[in-house]
């Protein structure tokens, strides 16, 4: 398949050239932040780092981290690096988990953000001949404005439908022949179902690609959406703190998302020690904005757990790839010195044909961590032979060991016996903390 790039020079840049570019930008950005953001200057002073210590990307690790808590403390203007008169827009998170994040943009910030989205649309096969339906919410949420701007930059005919009103979505989609759909994966799945109910077959609509993000989704969901809409479904990643969607995007290979690392430098760190981990390690994703003027976060801890890879990609892009985030640091457990995420256990259960009804019990006996995973037996797998049950437990323990690197004791338990609190299953019981 012929590859199109929105900014070929950057997207296929030789790695050493990219590093030089990033280094140059970082030096400039650290100065800009140090001079204009008192909050971050204090953090740097406390760490004994000055802009003079930063000569390139290799010095990035010397800089202090920013966390969600810092964003809360500095709300609303504490991290602003430009006078308000130079800012032209804000975007904001919903604030469902704690105080909302409000990010500021200069016109240049918006331009670069829209470029990132344009790269994503182009990687999904979009050109100026396409009709791009944006069914992400417009407003404070970054989804709608980001993809809308990217679609303009590519030159697509943009249908700014925003989210909701599915009947109207489908009417525009069919009447105006939308070829690209941008929305959350769950909404894409819903549109697919609605089309089917209305008697449309995938081949009746000209849609060819979808760009879906802003919420976690599985490969299984991807296949479902691709089938029901007759399209290729591409993942996109971003967060309001750094700009919005388009921080990373998927290409035709669909094996991870290329990070727009000329604007956002990605690191993986050990969430416990803060130490930078080598390529291929699983850890917390940290972003440094290299170009943002108004709201330039340095070493922002996303709390997303993920892996970076510089393996050669068949699409020709040299931009580093990030895997789909596999969990949040908030949920992380350290068992026998190994990081374990409940989401990994869930993945294994689904792969092995179980429902994700499970409970992790961790305890410490004679200074050793015990690690038990209780899993509800399903009617499909239940058998009358004890030897079968024992074999199933063993096989599941083996699959978990492969994923996690440590050996759990698996116990199959009768359905609905996993403790629930207010209807929600309690996933983790860590008895070590009770001591």
């Amino acid at each position, binding site marked *: 398949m012929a590859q199109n790039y929105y900014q070929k020079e950057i997207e296929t840049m030789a790695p050493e050239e990219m590093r030089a570019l990033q280094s140059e930008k970082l030096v400039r950005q650290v100065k800009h932040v140090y001079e204009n953001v008192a909050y971050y200057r204090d953090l740097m002073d406390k760490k004994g780092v000055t802009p003079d210590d930063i000569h390139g990307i290799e010095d990035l690790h010397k800089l202090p981290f920013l966390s969600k808590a810092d964003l809360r403390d500095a709300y609303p203007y504490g991290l602003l690096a430009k006078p308000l008169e130079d800012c032209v827009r804000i975007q904001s998170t919903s604030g469902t988990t704690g105080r909302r994040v409000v990010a500021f943009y200069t016109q240049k910030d918006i331009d670069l953000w829209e470029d990132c989205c344009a790269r994503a649309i182009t990687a999904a096969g979009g050109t100026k001949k396409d009709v791009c339906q944006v069914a992400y919410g417009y407003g404070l949420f970054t989804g709608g404005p980001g993809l809308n701007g990217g679609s303009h930059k590519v030159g697509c005919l943009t249908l700014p439908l925003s989210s909701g009103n599915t009947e109207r979505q489908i009417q525009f989609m069919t009447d105006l022949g939308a070829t690209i759909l941008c929305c959350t994966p769950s909404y894409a799945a819903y549109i697919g179902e609605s089309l089917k109910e209305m008697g449309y077959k995938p081949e009746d609509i000209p849609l060819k690609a979808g760009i879906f993000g802003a919420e976690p989704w599985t490969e299984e969901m991807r296949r479902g959406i691709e089938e029901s809409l007759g399209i290729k479904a591409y993942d996109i990643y971003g967060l309001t703190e750094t700009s919005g969607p388009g921080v990373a995007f998927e290409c035709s290979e669909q094996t991870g998302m290329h990070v727009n690392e000329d604007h956002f430098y990605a690191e993986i760190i050990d969430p416990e020690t803060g130490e930078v981990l080598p390529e291929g390690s699983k850890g917390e994703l940290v972003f440094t904005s290299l170009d943002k003027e108004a709201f330039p976060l340095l070493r922002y801890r996303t709390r997303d757990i993920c892996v970076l890879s510089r393996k050669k990609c068949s699409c020709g892009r040299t931009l580093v790839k990030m895997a789909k985030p596999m969990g949040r640091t908030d949920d992380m457990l350290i068992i026998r010195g190994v990081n374990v995420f409940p989401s990994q256990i869930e993945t294994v259960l689904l792969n092995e044909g179980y429902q994700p009804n499970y409970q992790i019990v961790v305890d410490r006996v004679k200074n050793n961590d015990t690690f038990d995973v209780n899993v509800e*037996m399903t*009617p499909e797998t*239940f*058998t*009358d*032979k*004890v030897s079968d*049950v*024992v074999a199933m437990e063993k096989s599941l323990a083996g699959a978990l060991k492969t994923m996690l690197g440590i050996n759990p004791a698996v*116990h*199959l*338990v*009768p*359905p*609905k*016996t996993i403790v629930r609190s207010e209807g929600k299953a309690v996933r983790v019981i860590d008895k070590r903390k009770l001591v």
Partner: protein
Amino acid sequence: MAIKQLTVFVQNKRGSVVSVTDLLSQSGVDLRALSIAETQDLGILRLIVNDEKTAERVLTENGYLIKVIDVVGVKIADAPGKLTEALSVLDRADINVEYLYAFLARTERHAYLVLRVEDNAAAESVLSGAGFKLITDADISKL
């Protein structure tokens, strides 16, 4: 020809078995035979009852994981050597018995053997060929 066995998945903790048998007796279901296989964590109850439909409904309604399977039922004289004889017949025919349990009837001077094998039809044919009398669900409900 085979008879129905109710298999119930329970946790291996005190009271698990009693909860099941209580439910059944309250619903008027009579237990003919009961066998338990267990590991450290779990128990698998195998039940032969006079009314397997009601038993299945009541236990399912109460949230139990149930599986009904066909097993072979054989009537044997309550005399020494009869059990060994039945098993040897199967062994000679190369039929592997996964598990078995026996129960006595209240009135007759007979014992009943419940056999779990891979191929019920094969087991039934060699047993009846050797002169053993097989039992059905209808026989069970009359016991």
